[in-house]
Structures are given as C-alpha cells and as structure tokens.
C-alpha cells in the first residue's frame, strides 16, 4: 500500500507526525486543539484508506506478494495433519508423566501414526501437480534466461530430491517439539540408530534424533 514506487513514506510516519503536532499544539494552545489535531489525523486516515480501498475495488492496485501467497490457502488435510501431530505430541507427553499405560500408548500411537502417514501421502499427491507445474515454469524461465536446459533439469532434479529428503525430517522435528519425549524405552520391535543409538519406531526410515537413514543401516548390518 505505502510501498508504491512514487511515495515511499514509512507506515509509522503519519501517525507519529500527527502525535507530534498534537503534543506541540497541546502545549501551546491547550487540550481542545490536541483533540482537533487527532481528529484531523483520523479524517486523513479515513480518506487515505477509502481511496486505497476503492482502488483495490477497481482492480488498479497490484497484488502484493503476501496476498498472492495467501491465495493458496491451507487445505483441510493440512489442518488435520496438524491436529494428529498435536495429538501425538500430547500422547507422548502423557506417557512421560505416567497418565497413560504403555499398552494403550502403543495402540493409540500406532493409530495416530497411520493417520498422519495417510494424510501426508494425500498432501503429497495433492501437491504433485503443482510441483510439476512449478518445475516446468522454472525450466522455461531458465531457458529464456539463456541457461542450458540440461542445467535446468539438473537443478529441478536436485530440488525434488531435497524436498523428498526434507519431508520426513520435518515431520519428525514437529513430533519432538515437547522436548520430553526423547529417550523413551524402545517400542517393541523398534529400530536403533547405528549413529547415535536413539530408539526409533519400527516403521521409521530416518533416525528422529540425527537423521541418518535407518533402513540402510538395518539392511547393511550383518
């Protein structure tokens, strides 16, 4: 709004100016003019806001980055995933303070994990189309910018590999947030990380403590 190229007035400047004028005027002429100055400031604000609103209505203002970003709202699955992760977090907390027995804990934990996994897969599937679109767009732009298409392909491959690597790690990080769930007794049939000796869930692919790939360790060990 204030970021238009013509006038770069910081957002805090007009209110500050109004306040300064009000204080100065107040000291010289009394409280009446303070109120009047503030009222004038408010009126200017009204005019400026209305002007901007009408401009936005007429489609003359540009979409800011934040607005464009917010157009892609979170899906319901994303919210459900968060709720499930929160429930898992709670479950771990409750085990740590002894409010839930081990058997119950494993039963519920398995149920929530399955649900979380299903939701994450759905999310990935939903995102696949968008990701391809972004990659195509990236290639096109790089090609237009004169870069070799081979390089562009490499870049996009790398990006994909990165996201794939990051996804499970992020999920793990979120689970560990309570800070009191690490170092539990191992789940039955759990995996031990060869690098840091941390116990992991039986279906884990990466260690939740250090990120070392787990399946490789198990398969690789004699």
């Amino acid at each position, binding site marked *: 709004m204030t970021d238009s190229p013509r006038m770069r007035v910081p957002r805090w400047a007009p209110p500050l100016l109004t306040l300064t004028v009000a204080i100065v005027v107040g000291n010289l002429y009394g409280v009446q003019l303070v109120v009047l100055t503030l009222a004038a400031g408010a*009126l200017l604000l009204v005019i400026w806001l209305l002007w901007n609103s009408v401009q936005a209505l007429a489609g003359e203002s540009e979409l800011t980055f934040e607005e464009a970003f917010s157009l892609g709202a979170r899906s319901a699955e994303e919210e459900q995933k968060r709720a499930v992760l929160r429930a898992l977090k709670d479950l771990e907390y409750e085990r740590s303070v*002894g409010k839930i027995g081990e058997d119950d804990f494993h039963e519920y934990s398995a149920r929530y994990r399955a649900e979380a996994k299903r939701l994450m897969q759905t999310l990935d599937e939903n995102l696949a189309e968008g990701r391809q679109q972004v990659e195509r767009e990236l290639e096109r732009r790089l090609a237009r910018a004169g870069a070799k298409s081979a390089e562009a392909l490499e870049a996009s491959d790398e990006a994909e590999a990165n996201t794939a690597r990051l996804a499970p790690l992020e999920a793990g990080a979120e689970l560990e947030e309570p800070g009191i769930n690490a*170092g539990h007794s191992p789940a039955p049939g759990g995996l031990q990380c060869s690098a840091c000796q941390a116990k992991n869930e039986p279906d884990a692919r990466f260690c939740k403590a250090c990120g070392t790939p787990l399946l490789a360790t198990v398969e690789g060990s004699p």
Partner: protein
Amino acid sequence: MWQSLPELGTGIVYAILIAAAYTFAVALAAGRGRPRLLQAARLGAYTTSALVLFAVLLLTYAFVSHDFRIRYVAHYSDRRMSTAYLLTSLWGGQDGSLLWWSLLLSGYVTACVAWLKGRYRELQPYVIATLMVIVGFFAMLMLFAANPFETSIAGARPDGEGLNPLLQNYWMIIHPPCLYMGFVGCSVPFAFCVSALVTRRLDNEWVVAVRKWMLFAFLFLSIGNILGMMWAYEELGWGGFWAWDPVENAACLPWFTASAYVHSTMIQERRPMLRVWNVFLICLTFFLTIFGTFLTRAGIITSVHAFAQSSIGTYFVYFMGVILGTSLGLMVWRLPELKSKGQIEAVASREAMFVANNWALLGGMTFILVSTMYPKISELWGESATVGPPHFNRWMGPIGLIIFALMGMAPLFGWRKTSEASIKKAFRAPLIAMLAMAVLHAIFGGYFGYPPLVARDAFYPGLVGTLIQKTGSALPGITIALAAFNVAVIVQEFVRGVKARRTVADKRGEAESIGLALFRLIEKNRRRYGGYIVHLGIVSMFVGFTGTAWNIDRETAMVPGDHYRIGEYDLTYEGSRRCPGNSKCSPEEQADIEKMMIFADLKVVRAGKALGYVHPAKFIYQAQPDGPTTEVSMMRSLREDLYTVVGQIDPQSKRATFQFHVNPLVSWIWVGLLILMTGTITSLFPELSFGEVGAWSYVRAGAGVAAGTAFAVWIAMAPSMAFAHERPANSHVGTQMTGLSEATLQRRLPGTGLGLAGFAGLALGSVVSVARRRRDNAKSSRD
C-alpha cells in the same frame, strides 16, 4: 468553534453505517468467487474503524470545548469538570456508551483484520462481513435511537448539568471499559463461527483461530466482573460484593459459556467431535453479550445499573432475533457436516470430564438466566414475583461445588482413556490432601472461628428442603476440602511434569535445575500450564467466596468513648469531625471545596494490640446536598477485613449509628484475579513458529505481552488508587436487600421449582450426553 459540529457528528455516524454497508458488500463479493476484492474489503474495514475513531474524537472535542448545544454533552458535563472526567463522560450515559462500544468493537475489527493478513484466506471475507453487520447495527442504534450528537431543542445552555457525582470515581473510568472489552471481544469468535458455517470449512482451522480470541474475551470478562465485585464491596457499603443484581448476572452469563467453550474446543482440536456443541457455545456467548447489553439498556428489569428507559430496547430485540435466526439457521443447514466423526472412548477420560464440566457450567448459566428473568417471565401468567439474593445463594452454592469438583478431577484423567491403575495413582495424593484438610478443618476450624459446619435455616418444607439445608450448612467444609484437593491436583501436575523433564534431561546428560525445568515445562506447554494457573486463581476465589459463610455483621449506636467488640476486634468511638474545618483534617481534606465530609473516628485494637484507626464517613456534595453518600472504611488482611460504615451522626451529641462487618478471606478473591490473569496471559502468549523466528518477532511478541500484562495489572491495581464516592445510602442495594426480611423474600419466591429447574437441566444434559456417547460408542464398536 464550529457552527456545524453536531451536524458533522451525525453525518459521520451516517458515514459509519455506509462504510460498514460498503465493506459488507465488497466482502461478500470477495467471498463469492472474486478473491482479489478481499484487499478492498480489508481496507473498507479499516476505513469503518477509522471513521468510528473520528466520531469519538469529535464527541471528545465537543466535551472539552463545552459545546452545550449537544444534548448529551449538556446532560453529562459542566464547565467545572476536569479533563479526565470530561473524558469519562464519553461513556457515562446511554448514547455515548454506544459510541464507546462501537469504538472498542472497531479496535477488535482492526486487530482481527490485521491479524488475518495472509491467514484463513477463505474465512476472511465472511469474518469481515459479519463484523460489519455488528458495527452497522450499532451505527443504526445511534442514528435512530440514541444519537450522541443530537442537539437540544431548547438550544445551548450556559452550563451543563454535570456528571452525576456518584459516577465521578475511579471505578467509572475503569470498570465499564473492561467489561465492554470482554463483551465486545465475543464478536470475533462469533464472526469466525458464522464464516466457518457459511464456507463449510468446518475442520479444525477456525477452532484454533478462535480459541485465543475467546480467551482474550474471557480474560476481560473475568477482570470486568471481579472489578464489579470490588466496586460493590468498596463503594456500595452493605458489606458484601455480589448482590445478584440483574445486570451483574447479565455480565457473568457470557463468562460461563466462554469458560465452557475454551475447554470443549480443546477436544475438537484433537478429535472431530463436539462440533455442533462448540458452534452452539460461541453463538450463545455472543447472544448473551447482546442480551446483557439489552438488559442494561432497555430497563425492562429494575436494577441499580439500568440506564433510563428508551426506545432502544426494541432495536435490541430485533437484533437478538437476527442473531438467533442466523445462528440456528446456519447450524441446521450445516448439521450433516457438523456431525461428530469421533466419539468419547471411555467415561474415565478427559473428554468425558470436559463434557460433564460443560454441562455444569451451562447448568449454572441457565439457572442464573432463568432466575434473573423470572420476575419478567412470571408476569406472563399475571404473577408478580421477585427473586432475591437468598434464592441465588442457596442454589448456586451446590452448583458451584459441582463445577469446582469437576475442575479438580479433569486434569487427573488422560485423553481418550485412562487405565484404572493410573487413575488410582493420580487420585491418591489429592485425595489424601483433601481428607487431611477436612480433618484439620474439623479439629481446628472452630477454634479460629471458621467451623466447617454453619447452621442454616430450612427454607423449604419436605425432603428437598432438608437436603438443601444440610448441604448448605456443610458447604464451607466441603468447599475448603475441595480447595485442598484442587491445589494438590495442580501441584501434582507441576511436580510430575518437572520430574519427567528432569529425567529426560538427565538421560541426555544436560541436567536441569528444578527452577529451569519448571520454567521450560511451562514455556513448552503454555496452554496446559497456563490453564492450571487459571484453575489456581479460581480456587483462590472459591476460598474467598466461602469466607462469606463466617461473616459477622453487627449494628450499634455509640457515643464518644463507647467500646464495641466484634470478633477479635475492640472498637473505641473517639468522636466525629467535619472537614474542611476541623484541625484534625488532613491538608487534602481541608482543601476540598466540592463536598463536606463528616468522619467518625474509631480506634481499632485486636488481641491487645493497637492496629490504628478506621474512619467511616458521610460525604455531602454541593451538587447533591440532599443525598449524602456513605464512605466505607476498612482494615484489610489476607485473613479477614474489618469493614465499617457509619449510618447517622448527630452533630450535637456526636452520637452515631454504625454497621460493623468482619468479612473473612475476602482478599483471596482479589488475589485469585491476579493469579487468573497471570495464567490467562501465560496461555495467550503468542506461539512463534520456526518460520518467523528472528530477533524482531521475539521483541514484538515480548512487547505485546508486556503491554498487555502492564495494562491488566494496572486495571487490577485500580482499587488501591480509587478515590471513593458513594451512592446515597437511601438508594443502595444493601438497604434494599436487608430491608426485606427473609420471611418476606421467602413468600415472594417462586418456590423450589426454579432452583430445581436449573438442576434438572444440568442432570438431564449430563444423562443425555452420556447416553448419546454410549450409543455412539456401541455403534462404532459394532461398525
């Protein structure tokens, strides 16, 4: 200065209505498939808020420039008033307080719209639209029923009538805005709720969004209500703090539903259940805030708070109709999607406890609502009934105890299902604490003057009457025992959490001290432990409420030199003095030209130790020579307050009549408020996600919380700064209440029916909900 200031003001109120309508339309368009219009709607909402601010500043200008052409200004101010009181006049009367209400609402609108930036993209348009309807309603009220800029038909007067001296005190500056903050704050959750229903986004996202807003409203509702108690206690001079006045009741109704909501929403955040219930609670809370305002404004029920009667009530009735129609319509429309997908898996679970607690809170709310409205309802069949404080006290005691017991038990259960072993383990220490306290209380209570059993009269004949009488007399003992149980539960929760943290830290090899572990425990689980701190505050308040059971109330007449003994206190009446004029008066008292003050000086000795003096007084204001006000003088401690009031003083003989009260444990209510505020602020502390971590975001969050805390503490400290004023003794609530004997009240009471109705509702609700859960359980297990 301005010839056309009143017209400009009225014009601005029109502009508010138009801007709200414009924003509403644009927001709807943005919601119906034109998302790029959202920015226009957001700016429109800001414009509306800025216009309200402009209108308030215009009215302020009219006050400070003494523009007596405006009726409201002439009615509520005069030329002698200081600037601070001129500003107070902004909400001193009906018309201005509506504008003030709109300003607070605009503050919420601005904060909400700014906070929404980049979030809840689909919900935003309808949130804005709903908020604009509410702003528009208040603009319409001002235009058609209570325009603060309306001019007097007779033209400008040379001087105004002045603000009623009774309203010129610290409480009037601080108490209404606080309560309004709580009331108005319930609009935001309602807007989210409507929006979620319209857009069908009924998942958890809006529930998470709404909880903090509701918690904020809850905080201010608590502060506003407790401040109201402080005001009644320190100003009204009848020795108590809560008189079950209709407006007091109206103010506490949304508190019950808001508390119920902040609990039940936690279930929905984890499991797809209780959706209809949560939607219902939000709509009900908002409805009750409007209903409360309606009770205060329309003057349909006689109350000490009521504003003058006006046509404004009709508009509120229409608006309440619109709210009811919209909420119920939307709920029915979306019922298939709101159906629970989860179920309570076991009765021994936190969910089941929360549901029970919800019903208890709602039962209490229903009881207060029905009892408050009963005089009006009974008119339907030609009966004229009054419902007095004894009725409320008798029934709210047991209902409060149920809530209190459930509050203690809920944290002991885990989510979903709790095994028998862990229940036993969790209940052991609190039960031992409770029994120990009960035994100690039985042995030593009488010695200290706080016996666990206090004799009560039987109010109703028959079994129910005897039952209520027995429960009533055992109430103090049970409450204190339950308080011990609750405290033990909270302490146990903290101890378990700290232990778990330290064990883990030890295993990691980074030992944590107890203090550090406690700090990190709260920091990592702010909502949970903030909630426990709030519970601690409530326990403290319950202890304070229980104190009333051991009150000592005495009335006497004394001449100078007389002694009187009340409780452990020896009071010696040393004579009266008139200020200004007497040599014993302080310089401030000598300099007061507004009023004449007549003090009675009493020397206080307790167990042979001189504690100092109390000076109850009568003030006679120049502006109101016929209505002398009563000034309370108190000696406070955490154990008990000595509360003295002087009735009449004979100027010749100096013979005076006094009311003395010893009120045990009252201070714990105010302490409880401070604890509750600490807990709520702990829960509210913004959660920073890793995405926005940076020094600046911490600074911002810290500054926000510091400002909020400072404000809240400042409000809480208000009583110590209060410079008192009083209602005339002949009109205060206490006189009205003590003037009626218990027997008269008894005859006028609608009998046991009303109280039983509350309980029946509560019991029925619990049975229905448990039965439903059972059925769902059975069904799901069959599936």
